[in-house]
């Protein structure tokens, strides 16, 4: 199953969103035009806009209203990626040069700030203050999550709770509010809005945990980055935390950590039960995601949401 198959019924509206994304970053400043469209052209799953549209299907679906939410969320995500590449000193993203490597850090900062401003301008086309309260809180939490990730770099003593809170802020929240805001913008009932939030949160948690698993065991070519790159940067994720704290081989593993033998650490984690433990946790989140949708009417959109959840559980990149 591919995401493109799940998105197929929405292709017309997604093509429209893609054109709106293009339009959104349009500027007369030629360098900024190139830099801001650089990441857009590199593609992406566009999973957040899809969630917005799917959320909207549970209310009064109006693409002219939903596009403001879909486009602004995707732009916020894009802006954070441009800045993340400066943070991580990344040369490549999705197989292409990052903005910071093709131009420089300064240009990347200006580009990210520009895209973020455009995102907010588009969001303010919707006057519903509730939308802005939800979106702004999520962005603050996203930033806080990123700052906490830096704080927790190389921190092997962090708890599982720490890790889960971090990935909630870093990833799950934006997905949760994608679903939630789509429903809100479509004037869905509060119960539906809440259920979609819960679905999105659980899918987002599973998405990030799966990402963290794939960082160890995924195919480098499909991932677009070397295996174990999280650990090399000091980002301690769930499989690594399991090895350090819980695994029967924890003592030996801690020796590797002490001696900073990263290649061996990666190899050990790849072959360890930590991967399975993480997978099982991701599955639990996906089960909760599906449960959140149970009371909702059976229709194509619900079906699509369930398929996306399954895809996330099964994905290889």
């Amino acid at each position, binding site marked *: 199953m591919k995401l493109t198959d799940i998105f197929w019924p929405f292709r017309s509206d997604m093509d429209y969103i893609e054109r709106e994304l293009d339009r959104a970053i349009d500027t007369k400043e030629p360098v900024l035009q190139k830099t801001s469209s650089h990441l857009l052209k590199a593609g992406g799953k566009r999973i957040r806009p899809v969630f917005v549209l799917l959320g909207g299907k549970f209310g009064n679906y109006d693409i002219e209203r939903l596009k403001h939410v879909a486009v602004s969320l995707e732009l916020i995500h894009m802006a954070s990626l441009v*800045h993340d590449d400066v943070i991580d000193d990344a040369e490549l993203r999705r197989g292409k040069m990052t903005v910071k490597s093709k131009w420089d850090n300064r*240009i990347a900062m*200006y580009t990210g700030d520009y895209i973020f401003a455009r995102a*907010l301008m588009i969001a*303010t086309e919707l006057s519903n203050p509730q939308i802005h309260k939800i979106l702004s809180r999520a962005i603050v939490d996203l930033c806080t999550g990123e*700052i906490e990730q830096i704080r927790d770099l190389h921190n092997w003593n962090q708890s599982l709770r720490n890790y889960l809170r971090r990935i909630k802020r870093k990833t799950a929240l934006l997905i949760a509010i994608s679903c939630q805001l789509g429903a809100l913008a479509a004037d869905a009932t509060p119960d539906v809005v809440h259920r979609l939030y819960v679905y999105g949160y659980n899918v987002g948690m599973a998405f990030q945990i799966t990402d963290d698993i794939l960082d160890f065991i995924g195919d480098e070519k499909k991932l677009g980055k070397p295996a174990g790159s999280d650990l090399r940067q000091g980002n301690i994720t769930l499989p690594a935390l399991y090895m350090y704290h819980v695994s029967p081989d924890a003592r030996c593993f801690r020796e590797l950590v002490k001696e900073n033998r990263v290649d061996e650490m990666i190899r050990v984690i790849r072959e360890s039960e930590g991967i399975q433990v993480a997978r099982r946790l991701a599955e639990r989140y996906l089960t909760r995601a599906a449960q959140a949708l149970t009371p909702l009417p059976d229709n194509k959109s619900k079906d699509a949401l369930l398929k996306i959840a399954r895809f996330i559980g099964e994905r290889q990149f």
Partner: protein
Amino acid sequence: MNLLRHDFQEEIKEILRQIKENAEQRILYQYIDNPPISQLRVCLLYLFLRQCGVRASAIRRYVVTAMLIQLGLDSHEQVSLEKEDTPLGVRTRQLTVLAGAYFSSRYYYLLAEMEDVRAIGQLARSIQEINEWKINLYWENGWTAEQYLRRKVDIESSLLKSFGKAYGGEKADVWVNIFSQMILVEQLLGEYKACRWEEGAGTYFRLLSKEEGTHNAYQSMLQYIHKALHQCRKLSALLDDEEGRVELKHLIDRCVEELDNQKVRAEEM
């Protein structure tokens, strides 16, 4: 001390306190210094909004959010261009990026809590404009000193001017000009200080030196500052409100004082 003056100063103190409170993130302080907050801009915006009859709680929120945006943008100016290979260098770069993002996110949060969607859009438009200008200024070559300075003033005064246009009414043009001139003074004072006291003169001074020679560049800059201050005084006389005129005069006098202090230090050396 005049009671109104005292109130003004107490308000400014409170606004500065709220800015610091909203910019607080413990881990950031361990690695980075926040960019300085321009008290001049805080005072100018506060004065302007009070003149327009904006209610006190809203004035505080607007000034705080505008300064948080400024802090965010200024933080991002500090992101290193060099390849950092020390752990401290890497951490500093990372947190400088995130600090800027965090401060900017707080602006959106504060205005969203106020349900002021219009102001969110107004300031976002300004941020858009600022970054368009910044990239243009940074990437393009061949600027004259005057062109460079004008563009810098556009960039640095954009946030204030956005309020000027939104709230100024009949006096919008006067206030937009006041903001421009005061920011021009601020920029020139900063350039003057940098070329005298810090390694690496500012870009404007370097461009001006190429055009006029170093000695003439100093003189030109001083003349320019005096001209801008004179223009500020003329503009402040156009304001209807006496309190506003008095406070603006104080701000201009402080700039003159700052300039005189710089000159005295130069002579001592």
